[in-house]
């Protein structure tokens, strides 16, 4: 079973993604801030990370940077799921090495799952 880490501080959104991903047959672990995200990655070694950008303690940009600088996590696919949608943010995140950028309000849950599946397929 493939394992997905959901990093999201808004509890209602986190629950929704967790629910749909487990219904779709993925193992789900989650984190509600940037520091927790990095320690969960260390412990759980997920197959993919769904990462929000505006997070307490350590923002998504820093988490992504830390993941890409670490030999052990450099290859884990990261799908950024955020409501920041300015080209500046998108460009910065892709430059830091994210695999995809999705604006939350523009995607249905089923489409998010679809993108997760596609990204895992490409790995």
């Amino acid at each position: 079973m493939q394992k997905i880490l959901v990093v999201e501080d808004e509890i209602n959104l986190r629950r929704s993604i967790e629910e749909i991903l487990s219904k779709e047959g993925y193992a789900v672990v989650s984190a509600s801030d940037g520091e927790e995200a990095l320690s969960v990655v260390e412990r759980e070694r997920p197959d993919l990370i769904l990462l929000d950008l505006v997070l307490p303690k350590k923002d998504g940009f820093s988490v992504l940077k830390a993941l890409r600088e670490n030999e052990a996590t450099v290859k884990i696919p990261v799908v950024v799921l955020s409501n920041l949608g300015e080209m500046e943010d998108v460009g910065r995140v892709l430059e830091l090495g994210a695999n995809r950028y999705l604006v939350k309000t523009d995607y249905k849950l089923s489409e998010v799952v679809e993108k997760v599946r596609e990204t895992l397929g490409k790995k």
Partner: protein
Amino acid sequence: MAELQKKTLPHINFFSECERAGLSWWQCPPFLFISMGVLTIFTMLFTAIIAARYFEEPEVPTVVAVTVVAILFFVMGQSIIQGFNKIAQANRMKTEFISIASHQLRTPLSVFKWTLDLMVRDMSDEEKKTGVPNNELGRLVGALTDSTERMARMVNALLDVSRIDAGTIVFDSQPFSLSELTEKEVANFNELTGGAHVKIEYDAPKSVRPVKADKLRVTMVVQNLIDNAVRYTPGDGVITVRIEDAGGPSVKWSVTDQGLGIPETEKKNIFGKFFRAENVKREKIVGSGIGLYIAKSIIEKTGGKIGFESREGKGSTFWFTLPVAR
């Protein structure tokens, strides 16, 4: 000062904009410009008169007058610059406010959207089990989903307005079929307005060359223009959506309605931000006044043109052109 001006020059209202922007009279650019003009004229006249009458060497009063005027101009110039900066800052703050508010709205919107997604999903599971569709709940969830989508589109439109104002809007540029896109949107609208007062007809040649533009944003423009045609046709009517491809460097898209039309005096403002014509306000037709503003920016930045012909009470044709993909 504004009161004095109202009494003396009621028809030239150069203070009203400054009052709205919170500028005092000594910072108000129109007032300062006029004062500078008046000051120049009077100084020249007086200097000439005084110099001719009382001085052996007319250079002395001339140099004094020029120095005094230069100092006054410098001080007034500073005030004008400050005034303009204040106005520019207010405008920038408004744009930033739209951007911040829209981003903040997106989080609760995502919660609505995804929670509704889960409800729809759970419902269809339950329906699969019992074989009985729960129609009432389905209708309610459907209504919420539609409204949430509409709100998400509105937030995206507001964000586009703030991006246009800040000059940070970035367009995608891909070849796509404008006729396929339009056919789909016309079908959607006919389904939505099914049985309502208007019918939308679609008229296009068999083959239309693909255009090169930002597909998502052109979809927004097409939806917006058809939506306007439907909304501003209060009675019965036929709306015609047409595509013309005459083999030139661009393809022309248009929508013709038999609706309210645009009053002659308001035509020049129709693409302005948040502008709404008096006759549509009178008819109490809901709208935000940002659709055409965004449409103009999208089409023109893509290398196309946008325009309209309209007669009040008869109807309007709105059209745009997009460059053909090579």
